């Protein structure tokens, strides 16, 4: 049974139209004309309990707007949302107790107070009993390594420390659903890895349903089995990461290092279906092939028949290339 159900969701924003020219400012002030933009346009999906879903899209694609509607702080212009059986904006108080939100670019902690004070306050706001509070805090201190700076004012924390503080704040009351909006943005490699590890643990051990938006595709490859990709407010893809790669990036690249011959060797020629040579020098052969149409062993056999080979590597397409592909195709379709 899905814990999040989104049907034909629409969000429009209106802003007053700016009039150019003489007295433009004054005329904009008195005119009633406005421009309507659709940030989210007929989005539908459903997410099951315990899923960890990547919600992807370029800047301004409508990701954050969707998250804000899911968390109840924006009211949809159309369509329906049900989160754990509730309409988020109508039942905001109960919904709030059920969800945790982490924004990489912002902090929910109180800037000029020690981290511990913020955590205590959040415990009270979310009605966590003292005993459960202590238990959860101990676990989070352990998992996130925040023990060393609990008494430091938040404004003096490094970005990585602050992020850990924010993750602790969001999980302190064990919400059923966690929205992570670019949680690794700006973090160094170690901090990124630590964040990912925590997210994975939370999902695995507590069964928390997680929606993750990010621009770092390494996050997605590491964490998500399923992704939803949106662009210009519409869902372009919803499915598994492997299916996405299969559909949008069927090619694998084969990089073969050749042993140099005594005489300049004739170039390798391959007349195989589903193989194309990209680059060829005396010592290197770079080609791409479609694994559905030809087995990699057939290619290698063909190459070995012509030249001595010293090294072979197969390069999987990365998600970044895939995303570029989808956006470009999406634009062609539109």
């Amino acid at each position, binding site marked *: 049974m899905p814990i999040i159900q989104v049907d034909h969701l629409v969000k429009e*924003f209106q802003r007053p139209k700016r009039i150019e020219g003489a007295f433009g400012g004054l005329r904009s002030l008195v005119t009633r004309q406005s421009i309507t933009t659709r940030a989210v346009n007929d989005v539908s999906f459903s997410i099951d309990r315990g899923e960890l879903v990547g919600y992807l899209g370029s800047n301004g694609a409508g990701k*954050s707007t969707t998250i*804000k509607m899911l*968390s*109840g*702080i*924006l*009211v949809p212009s159309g369509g329906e949302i*049900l989160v754990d*059986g*509730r309409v988020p904006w*109508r*039942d*905001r*108080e*109960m919904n*709030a*107790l059920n*969800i945790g*939100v982490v*924004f990489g*670019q*912002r902090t*929910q902690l*109180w800037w*000029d*107070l020690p981290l511990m*004070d913020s955590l*205590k*306050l959040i415990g*009270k*706001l*979310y*009605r966590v009993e003292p005993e459960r509070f202590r238990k959860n805090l101990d676990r989070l201190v352990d998992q996130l390594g925040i023990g060393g700076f609990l008494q430091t004012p938040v404004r003096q924390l490094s970005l990585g420390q602050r992020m850990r503080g924010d993750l602790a704040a969001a999980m302190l009351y064990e919400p059923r659903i966690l929205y992570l*909006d670019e949680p690794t943005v700006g973090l160094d490699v170690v901090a990124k890895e630590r964040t990912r590890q925590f997210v994975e643990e939370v999902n695995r051990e507590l069964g928390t349903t997680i929606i993750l938006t990010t621009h770092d595709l390494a996050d997605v490859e590491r964490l998500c089995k399923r992704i939803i990709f949106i662009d210009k407010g519409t869902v372009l893809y919803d499915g598994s990461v492997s299916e996405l790669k299969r559909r949008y990036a069927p090619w694998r690249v084969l990089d073969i290092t050749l042993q140099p011959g005594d005489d300049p060797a004739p170039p390798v020629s391959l007349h195989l279906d589903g193989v194309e040579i990209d680059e060829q020098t005396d010592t290197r052969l770079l080609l791409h092939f479609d694994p559905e149409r030809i087995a990699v062993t057939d290619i290698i056999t063909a190459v070995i028949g012509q030249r001595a080979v010293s090294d072979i590597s197969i390069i999987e397409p990365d998600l970044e290339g895939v995303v570029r592909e989808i956006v470009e195709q999406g634009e062609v379709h539109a």
Partner: protein
Amino acid sequence: MSAQAAPRGGLGSLSRNREAILEVARMTVRRAYMYRINVVMGIVLTGITIYLLTILWKAAYGDRTEVDGVSIQQMLVYLTIANLQLRFLTPEVDQEIEERIREGQIGFDLNRPLPYPFQLVAGALGQMVGLLPMLAVALPVAFIFGELRPPATVEAGIAYVASLAIAWIVAVELNMIIGLVGFWTLEMTGFKMMYRLIGNFATGALIPLWFMPDLFRNIVQVLPFQAIAYIPVSIYVGNPAMGSNGPALLLQAGWAVVLVFVIRLIWSRAYRQTVIQGG
């Protein structure tokens, strides 16, 4: 899908969230302490205001000891108490809302299980409590620059305490209404300046209502601002204009209740209006 009974942001929510409200207040107390230098500066400013008003009103009275049944001493005590009180009854709810909206932090506030207006009230409560120790600075300043006397009678003193509490509520309410306008305009510096200007005048802290020209008095009398300074301080100095304290307190309490409904109305609209800046 059956319709669930949604909990409303009413008194039920208030009791459910009592601990959360107290914790928010406690936190604001700690923050208020960090800005104590600002507060001291504010008190110095109040001292100067009281001093200037004292000179002005002494000159206005001239040789007379009483005008329209108000003695010069009553007048000076009125000015001192009114301005002192205003220093402590100026919530910063509007500023808080504006900052949170500008920084895009309002999203977090709205995501809390405690309705936003309650968070604001809790914050204002904490700020006020945090300010109280500053009376140790403010009272001597008021004593030196103005005229500080005990209340006119014991009953006046008791009524004043009650009236002061209501004055605080009305001050927070009005301040919140101004702040919530930010949900529509997003930019409200001009609006706030107007509010401060009109507000300062209409509270009666500079000129008590009994000395205002008829035109102004008639306007100010139908506005809620008088509940912040004029009503409680009049009671304190013996209520020379209204005579008895009962109707004055009733009028004040009436405004406190009416404004609750105004806020509920504005809030339910503002809530649908939410546009989080950035992100």
